[in-house]
């Protein structure tokens, strides 16, 4: 697939704070590209720079091979976006909101087009209701309709599940998958939740304190041979001793009193359990967690990250 977005050495400095620091990545046509990082990692700043809302201190952003700022209007015609909250003109109806942003996108607006779009997001029967009367989920759906009304090639969704209930989160997830599979859109989606990214993205980047930590295919980054298991036993001291002597198992984390953190191939878990129980160590619980998740959480919790993953970072 052709490279559709190229971000090169992008930086943004607010006074003394480096919100984004020498960030480079690329997105291919048809990707659902996950943008993962904890709150304050620089995800929103990067996305806002990609939408010309924030001017970079340094670096270059290209869409379709063209420099963003030199071809701003041409490029923005091909991009739809939801940035954090789905805000609209509260004093206007869903129809008016959609109509206004459609006109601003430079497309020919007809009543049928607007109603079809509202119908697609399930708001056709509320077309004349003011958006201030909408629930968060409905506002998000209206935001999606606005983002899609001009049939963009790329959708940029910044934390699109923020504030949504579980059903809304599931709907958003399904929509992203549908956008890729049925409509062939390229989607860039940010989140601070790995589980969200894991379910929708085929490629992703992890950023932390404005810097890239990792980038690659989600399937490779979530390789099952990198599973971390949190083991809770009746005798953690004895279990630690036994596990450290077993081949193919690495102790990854020693600061947790309750769980022993081990890294191993997922297929070796049954055999490991058998060996522990045979040695008289009772298993109270086993919590498999992928090394990427462990790694990401270690960033979030500001603890030591998993060694096995660091070898795979870009």
């Amino acid at each position, binding site marked *: 697939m052709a490279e559709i977005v190229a971000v090169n050495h992008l930086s943004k400095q607010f006074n003394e704070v480096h919100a984004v620091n020498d960030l480079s990545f690329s997105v291919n046509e048809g990707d659902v590209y996950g943008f993962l990082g904890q709150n304050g990692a620089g995800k929103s700043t990067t996305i806002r720079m990609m939408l010309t809302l*924030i001017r970079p201190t340094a670096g270059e952003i290209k869409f379709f091979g063209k420099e963003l700022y030199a071809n701003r209007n041409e490029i923005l*015609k091909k991009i739809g976006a939801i940035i954090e909250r789905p805000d609209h*003109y509260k*004093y206007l109806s869903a129809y*008016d909101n959609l109509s206004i942003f459609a*006109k601003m996108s430079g497309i020919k607006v007809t009543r049928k087009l607007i109603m079809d779009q509202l119908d697609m997001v399930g708001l056709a029967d509320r077309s004349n209701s003011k958006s201030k009367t909408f629930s968060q989920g409905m506002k998000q759906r209206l935001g999606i309709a606005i983002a899609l009304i001009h049939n963009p090639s790329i959708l940029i969704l910044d934390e699109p599940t923020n504030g949504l209930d579980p059903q809304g989160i599931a709907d958003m997830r399904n929509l992203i998958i549908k956008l890729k599979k049925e409509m062939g859109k390229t989607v860039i989606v940010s989140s601070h939740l790995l589980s969200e990214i894991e379910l929708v993205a085929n490629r992703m980047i992890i950023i932390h304190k404005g810097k890239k930590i990792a980038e690659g295919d989600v399937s490779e980054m979530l390789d099952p041979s990198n599973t971390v298991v949190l083991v809770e036993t009746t005798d953690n001291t004895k279990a630690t001793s036994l596990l450290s002597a077993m081949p193919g198992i690495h102790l990854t984390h020693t600061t947790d009193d309750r769980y022993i953190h081990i890294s191993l191939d997922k297929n070796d878990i049954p055999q490991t359990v058998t060996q522990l129980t045979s040695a008289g160590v009772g298993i109270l619980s086993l919590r498999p967690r992928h090394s990427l998740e462990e790694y990401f959480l270690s960033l979030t919790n500001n603890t030591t990250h998993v060694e096995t993953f660091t070898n795979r970072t870009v």
Partner: protein
Amino acid sequence: MWKLLQIELYKISKKPRTYIAFIAITAIVFVFQFAFKADGKAYLDFMAQDVTDSFVFDKSKAINGYFMCYIILNTLLVQVPILVALVAGDAVSGEANMGTLRLLLTKPVSRTQIILVKFIASFLFTVSLLVWMAVTALFLSMAIFGVDDMIIFRSKGDVSQILQITKDDVMWRYFAAFAYAAVALTVIASLALLLSVFAENSIGPIIATVCIVIVCTVISNINVPIIDKYAKPYLFTSYLVGWKGFFYINSTDDGETLKGTMENWPAVRNSLLNLLAYIAVFLSATIIAFRRKDILS
């Protein structure tokens, strides 16, 4: 651009706060008209007490539609900047507060276009306010009080004057005065728009605009030579009341007013040019600031 302007005007027309200004103007005008209908003669006696010895006029005809409009404009044009700031101060900051600014700026429209459209929309709002003032304060007063020669009371230094303008020489002066007022109020609108760029809620720029207008107006009214020389020429508020110049008519040595004349057209013209310069400065500053602004809201 035209499509953007239509959108902006539509948004303004749908905001409830837009109509506060029209309601306020209507209420104030009606209070004036009621008061003068009920007891206008007392006002006239009070105003004319210093000049009745030297100037004779028919008080029963003095309170007419033209006179009423002049009295109302004298009071109202001091308050209208607040009403203009209500809309112009909300133009960008209101969008930032609502969260629509970031959505607006991801559309293929330049930031300069957005500011120009918001400026034009604020100007058209100002003009529509003045048209409404003309309808209520001038035409409605003409219907209620009738039409006759217009009497103006003027303090020039320590001297009180009465100017009389014949009824067939008044209307063009009102058109000119309203046009001047439109320019003067557009200065306020462009100032409010500039302040609006730096804020993320509407209250700040609206209050800041009103405060600046009040402070500058107070300074403009201090009659001390050093302020006359070094401050007043640079304050836009010094030129806001320049519309009155259209009603200061020339007269002969015998005191007879000369139809179609103005006492000091060059001063009015210079005031107008100063106001236009202020609009250019405020608008340019707004465009520059907005183009450089990082949208963090």
